[in-house]
Every structure is written in structure tokens, then in C-alpha cells.
């Protein structure tokens, strides 16, 4: 780690594309040909209405990636590899939308044109930008670091959400698909961690010391991206629906994993 507190030249997150290659390949292996989505048919009477509502909301949320990627690219600016990751990530989230949409169709619960229009036309950029500015602990904090911290939290929340709904699901084939999406979100969670740690290697002690308070600032005012699209609120599909299935144990896991991970950055040397 660089102990200097002076302003330094821009440092990329990763020195080589190897990490991106690895994550891209592992992502391809998760859904090699999407053959499992052909001719899906499920018994609607075996699926609770709230699970269907969760699926509709989450399918649209995953489809909303075109909104979200803008904020990522804005944060990553000149960091080419993180911008490339954003592209890979967005494509993988689109697969999740596709899986959920096919599952919904298998239940006879297709998304409507109105759903897509509502989401596509929903304002996101300005609302999210205001929120993002409000959570910064300092005007000179590295936006990449903030976005990655947010990414760690957001992706782990997705892991918990899909895990929770898989446990709630009475149809094993559906539960297995939810679990597979959860595994994919685990990869995303892990990538954000690795990128943050990689950034940290080039940070000064002062910059590293910003990670824990920045985590606390985000955690204390956590708003998932769907909070910033009106369409979700209109259909009562906000964060409350997203977290509604979480058991006490899963909520605890979220708190413990996040705390145990981020607190390590209070002692930067131990991290890198």
C-alpha cells in the first residue's frame, strides 16, 4: 500500500484483464445455453401471490439495468476495466431478467407492454444522482470506491433476496433457478469486493480510511436502485417487497457479513 497522503496520478482498479476474463468465463458457465428455459411450465396454484409479485418486480428490476449502468459508468469514468465490468455485469443481469420472465410465462403471468413502458420511461438518472451525492462522506472521495461499496451491499442484498425466495418456493425446479441466480449474484458481490481491495492497494492510508465511514454512510441511508424509479412505487414493488421474504437469520447474515467485511478496512494494512 502507498502510505503517501499526497494527490497521486489515477490508478486503475486492476493491473491486468485477468480478473475480468475469469469472471466473464465463470458467468458463461452459469448459463451455457439457457436450454433450461425452454418450455417452462409451473403449477400457478403452488406459488404464492407474493412470490409472483416478487418475480414481476425483480424481473423488471433486472431489466432496469440500462438505467443503472449509467450511474456505474459515471462513477468509473476513466477506469476502463471497471467500465468493462459494468458491461459484463449488465449483460448478466439481463440474463436474470430473461430467466424470471420465462418463469413468469411458465406460470401464465407474463409481463405486459405497460410494465416495460413504465420501467423504460421511468426517471432514474437525476433521482439516483442526487441520492449518490447525498451519501458521499467527502467531496473528494473516489466515486469508484463509493460505487464499489454500494455494489458489495447491493449484490449481497440480491443474494439474500433470491436465497430467501428460493426457500419460500414450493416447486423445486423454480427454487433451483432462484438459487442459481443467487449464485450469480454471489459472483457479482465477490467481484465488487475484489475490485475494492485492488483499488485499496494503490490508495493512500487516508483514502483507505474513508472506506469504513463511507460504508456506514451508505448503510445508514441505503436505497436500492428501484427506489428511484417511480413505476416500482406505483405498483408497490419497492424495496419492501424485495426484502419481505427475508427471515431474521438472513437479515442477520446481511448485517454480519457486511460489518465483518468492511470493518477490515479500518486497518488497511491487514487488508492488502
Amino acid at each position: 500500500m502507498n502510505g503517501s497522503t499526497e494527490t497521486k496520478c489515477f490508478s486503475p482498479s486492476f493491473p491486468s484483464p485477468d480478473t475480468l476474463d475469469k469472471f466473464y468465463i465463470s458467468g458463461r458457465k452459469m448459463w451455457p445455453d439457457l436450454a433450461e428455459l425452454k418450455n417452462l411450465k409451473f403449477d400457478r396454484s403452488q406459488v404464492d401471490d407474493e412470490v409472483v409479485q416478487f418475480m414481476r418486480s425483480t424481473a423488471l428490476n433486472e431489466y432496469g439495468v440500462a438505467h443503472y449502468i449509467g450511474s456505474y459508468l459515471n462513477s468509473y469514468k476513466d477506469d476502463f476495466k471497471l467500465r468493462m465490468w459494468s458491461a459484463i455485469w449488465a449483460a448478466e443481469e439481463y440474463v436474470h431478467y430473461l430467466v424470471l420472465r420465462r418463469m413468469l410465462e411458465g406460470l401464465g403471468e407474463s409481463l405486459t407492454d405497460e410494465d416495460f413502458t413504465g420501467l423504460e420511461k421511468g426517471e432514474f438518472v437525476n433521482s439516483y444522482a442526487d441520492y449518490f451525492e447525498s451519501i458521499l462522506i467527502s467531496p473528494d472521495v473516489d466515486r469508484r470506491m463509493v460505487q464499489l461499496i454500494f455494489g458489495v451491499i447491493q449484490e449481497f442484498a440480491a443474494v439474500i433476496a433470491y436465497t430467501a425466495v428460493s426457500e419460500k418456493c414450493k416447486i423445486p425446479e423454480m427454487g433451483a433457478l432462484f438459487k442459481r441466480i443467487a449464485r450469480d449474484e454471489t459472483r457479482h458481490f465477490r467481484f465488487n469486493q475484489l475490485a475494492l481491495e485492488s483499488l485499496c492497494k494503490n490508495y493512500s492510508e487516508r483514502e483507505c480510511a474513508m472506506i469504513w465511514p463511507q460504508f456506514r454512510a451508505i448503510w445508514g441511508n441505503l436505497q436500492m436502485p428501484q427506489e428511484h424509479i417511480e413505476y416500482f412505487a406505483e405498483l408497490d414493488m419497492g424495496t419492501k417487497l424485495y426484502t419481505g421474504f427475508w427471515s431474521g437469520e438472513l437479515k442477520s447474515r446481511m448485517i454480519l457479513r457486511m460489518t465483518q467485511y468492511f470493518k477490515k478496512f479500518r486497518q488497511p494494512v491487514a487488508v492488502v
Partner: protein
Amino acid sequence: MNDLVVAPSISREEIFVTLKLELVELLCLESSDAISEDTRLVEDLEIDSLGMVDLVMQVEDCFDIVLPTNTDLSKIKRVGDVLDLLDKPQSTKLSATTI
């Protein structure tokens, strides 16, 4: 880092005294006099989700432990529940980082 929450040689009373000092520091209280095992974390100490993050961090640092990720924090409603957690080494071994 211990794989047990607190060394067995430390009594519950000693853990309680230390825990109270940690709560005083964490919550900027004037003293620990009002803290008992029955004190409620949310209603009496106003520990919210951010406060829970700080509490976990403080407890883990202070006692040099890592709480297992399968710990159900929602069942920890009173100070006495935190003590129970710290006073039961057999239930608090480090767990694998399972999702």
C-alpha cells in the same frame, strides 16, 4: 482471533461489565448505570440497523471474536441476549462463510 466468543475463564459478570463500557462508548451514554440485562436494544438504547453494525463491530473487536454468520440477530432484543451470545462458546465457533 479466537474461535470461541469469549475465553471460558471470563465470568458472565466480567463480560457484562465490559459490554456495558462498550455500550457507553458506542452510544455516547453518560454512564452505564441504567443498563441491565433487561435493557432493550431498540426501544431503550435506540439501536437501529446502523447501530447494530456498530455494535457487532464493537463487540467483535473488544472480545477479539467473529460472530458466526448464522447468528440470528433478530432474536437479540435485550442486553442479556448479547451476553447469552458471548457466554455460550459452544454455539459461537467460527462458521464457514456460507451464503
